[in-house]
Structures are given as structure tokens and as C-alpha cells.
């Protein structure tokens, strides 16, 4: 029986042979992962779209109202008060009524829970896959990075769609409630800021939602992760 010297692995030094996963490759793997699970990722994305469009809607509403107030003066102020805004004519500022603010906060909380739940499920259903990756030499940090990248991509997509959608709906309802005058005096910078802020908030929500389950998954001993399948 002839048996040659075993595998090449042992003869080479350890220093230059570290485990790596380039950023580009991580993005590629995360992207494919989302693509393959298109349906599931779209559910996560759509919950983000909902949350962010609501937030953007509320913020842009305030911008539109602010614009009306600046140019419409006292008439506009009465119209806005009638529509349920808290108007401070002296400061030229419009804010939500306390009731409305609570509704916004509650809705955002509900959406956050939904996003965390979706991300939690998408991580747990992949425990065995994570275990296999770790058996093949993946580091905890790589697993974490893959999930964070996925969440960031989902967040960016969902949040930007949501922000634009929310902004548009707000403009439309503004026009319906206050007539086309609402569009005449739009504070563009403020609106862009609102849409941007809503997008950012959505991305953060998505990352926050995935962080805990991904940390748990990344730290799991590979054998437990594989066993979880059975």
C-alpha cells in the first residue's frame, strides 16, 4: 500500500495563512443570500417600507404645514389648527398634537417589533447553515458581518422606498386637505431632511433587529448549530 505524505496543510507556516473573507465577497454572499430567499427578504423589506413610509409621512406632513404657515399667515394657521396641528404662530412652528405623537410612537414600536421578529426568524432558520460555515472555518465576525450586510441592504432598500412613498402620500394628502397652495410653498430642504432621516431610521431599525439574533448565531458552537437542525 503506497501512501504518500499527507496533505499540504501541515508543511506551511501559520502566520500567512489566516482566515479571510473580503468585503466584496461578503457583499456578494449576502446579496445572493437575499436573492435566494427573495420572498422572505421581501416580507422583511415590506415591514420596513411600512414603518418608514409612516414616519416619512408624518415628518413631511409637518414640513408641508410649516410651509403653509410661513406663507399663509393667520388664515393658514386657523386651517392647520382645524386640521389638528399644534400651531405656534409666534415661532412660525407647527408640531403634532400630543395624541398624534403617541400614535406615531406606538406605530413605530409595533413596526420595530415586527422587524426584529422577521430578522430573528431569518437567523434561526439558518442555524444549521451557520454551523456548517463555522465547521468550514468561518470566524464569528464573518457570520456577524454577513448578517449585518444583509440587514443593511434590506434596510437601505426598504427604507428608501418607504421614505419616498411616505413623502409622496403626504404631499398628496396635503394637496387634498389644503388645496394646491400646499405645494406652492414647500420647504424643499426640510423635506429632503425628513425623508433622509426616515431612511436612516429605517436602516438603523433593520440593523438593530438583526444584531441580537446574529450575535447569538455567530457565537454558537458549530456542533450545536448543526444539531439544531434535527
Amino acid at each position: 500500500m503506497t501512501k504518500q505524505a499527507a496533505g499540504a496543510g501541515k508543511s506551511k507556516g501559520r502566520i500567512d495563512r489566516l482566515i479571510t473573507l473580503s468585503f466584496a465577497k461578503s457583499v456578494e454572499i449576502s446579496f445572493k443570500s437575499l436573492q435566494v430567499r427573495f420572498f422572505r427578504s421581501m416580507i422583511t423589506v415590506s415591514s420596513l417600507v411600512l414603518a418608514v413610509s409612516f414616519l416619512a409621512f408624518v415628518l413631511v406632513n409637518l414640513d408641508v404645514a410649516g410651509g403653509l404657515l410661513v406663507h399663509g399667515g393667520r388664515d393658514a394657521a386657523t386651517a392647520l389648527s382645524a386640521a389638528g396641528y399644534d400651531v405656534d404662530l409666534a415661532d412660525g412652528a407647527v408640531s403634532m398634537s400630543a395624541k398624534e405623537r403617541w400614535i406615531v410612537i406606538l406605530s413605530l414600536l409595533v413596526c420595530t417589533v415586527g422587524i426584529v421578529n422577521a430578522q430573528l426568524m431569518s437567523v434561526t432558520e439558518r442555524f444549521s447553515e451557520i454551523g456548517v460555515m463555522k465547521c468550514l472555518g468561518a470566524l464569528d465576525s464573518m457570520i456577524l458581518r454577513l448578517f449585518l450586510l444583509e440587514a443593511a441592504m434590506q434596510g437601505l432598500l426598504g427604507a428608501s422606498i418607504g421614505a419616498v412613498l411616505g413623502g409622496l402620500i403626504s404631499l398628496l394628502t396635503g394637496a387634498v386637505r389644503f388645496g394646491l397652495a400646499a405645494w406652492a410653498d414647500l420647504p424643499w430642504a426640510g423635506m429632503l431632511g425628513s425623508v433622509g432621516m426616515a431612511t436612516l431610521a429605517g436602516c438603523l431599525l433593520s440593523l438593530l433587529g438583526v444584531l441580537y439574533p446574529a450575535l447569538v448565531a455567530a457565537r454558537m458552537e458549530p456542533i450545536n448549530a448543526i444539531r439544531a437542525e434535527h
Partner: protein
Amino acid sequence: MNEERRTIVRVVGVTKSFTMGKVEVMALKGVDLEIFEGEYISIMGPSGSGKSTLFNMIGGLDKPTEGKVFIDEVDISQLDAYELAWLRNRKIGYIFQTFNLIPVMSALENVTLPMTFAGMNADDAQDKGIELLKLVGLGERFQHKPLELSGGQQQRVAVARSLANDPAIILADEPTGNLDLSTGEEIIELMQMLSEERGVTIISATHDYKMLNVSDRVIWVRDGVVDRVERREELDISVGGIGEKLTGTKRNGSPEPTGERG
């Protein structure tokens, strides 16, 4: 087999206990083993005897309660996370009973993943992946997803994946456990070929008596201890060639005549 033998795996006084609620289960009760480079080892024993647990200890997938495992004379309990990942990535190739391919990746992507972790560039990894898939007889099916492949084919992909970074050791936990007789036999032949042509050390936990014929040594485990260790020559006498009776095949390239028994 008379060349100088280098120890590649050394297991010293390994015990493993699991606590389930208040009961403590001793899965391994003190195992000592020495496995040499290039050997084909089968770990045999009844269900629940601790084969998989031992497999996980040797592969650095789980930690012993007591005792030590040395790979290439390095105590793997002393390795940090990076070194352990390095060991899993380069030194050891794993094959599981349930194949454990990544379902969302194609056969080729499954095989090249460990190479990616090892820092190999994409083109080289692609070429090597295709070459390995050809070696296991799946040359044309590298774009298929695991679920589009039969069990035997999936296990071939897993064998190819285990070879990704030319490991010195291949660890297999019941590699034929989910396969029918003839498919299982093909996998065993494949592993035998690896052992002979590539000189890889193969350690395989198994129920499968067909595996006996190709093993250099068989380690019988019972109730968490090593019951006995038999070299194949001894095995032929004591078991009376049970493996050969079961399969009707002889070990290829076997150094001693195997057909003389009654």
C-alpha cells in the same frame, strides 16, 4: 505500513459529560487513542456508544470535559478562535451523515466556500472546485443546488468540499448512514481512493460493516470507552471477513490475500 509513522491525532484521557436537566450523561468515559498519518480508521460501536461525541472532540467541534486532543502534537484546547478556525478550514475536512451542504448555494459554491475562507482568489477556487467535483464524479452537475441532487450525489459534493483545502485529515461521521447500500459503497470507495492516492488520514465513525474492509484499524467503542482496537489483519481472523461476506467485494490493492478464509 512499516515506514516511520507520524502521529497525527492523539487523544489523551478524554471524557465528555452532558448535563440534561439534573441528570448527567457520560458520553465518553476516558478515551485514549493514537492515530497515525495516512491511516484509514473506522470507529465502530452500537448506537449511543459515543462515536459522534468522539468525532466532535477530534474535529475540534466540541470541547472535552476532561482530557486533551492533540492534532499534529498541538493541544487544540489551547487554540484561540482564529487558530481553531484555521484548523477547521485547512487541516480537517468534515463529512457528515446528513451531508450538511448549504442549501442556497450550488454544488460548486459549496465546494469553493472553504477556499474563499482560505483566501484563495475566485478564479483559482473555481478551477479547483470543478476539478474536485470531477474527482468525485460530478463533473457536469456543479451548477445544481443540493436539493436538486440525490443523497449520494450530495454526499459526493460533501466529499469534494472536505478536500477543498487539501486537509491532512478527513473526519467522517457515518458518511454512508443516509445512503442505500450501493451508493454507500461508492462513497466508501471514494474515501478509500483518497486514502491511497492522496495519503489523507481518514477517520470515520460508522455502523457500516462495509467500511471494515477498507480500514487499516478499527476502533470499537462501547459505552463511552474504547473496547478494543483491531488492525485489519486481526480483524479478518476475528470477524471472519464479515465485511467481505456482506458486500462480496475485496479490498482493492490489499497487501495480503483475503480470499483464503473458509
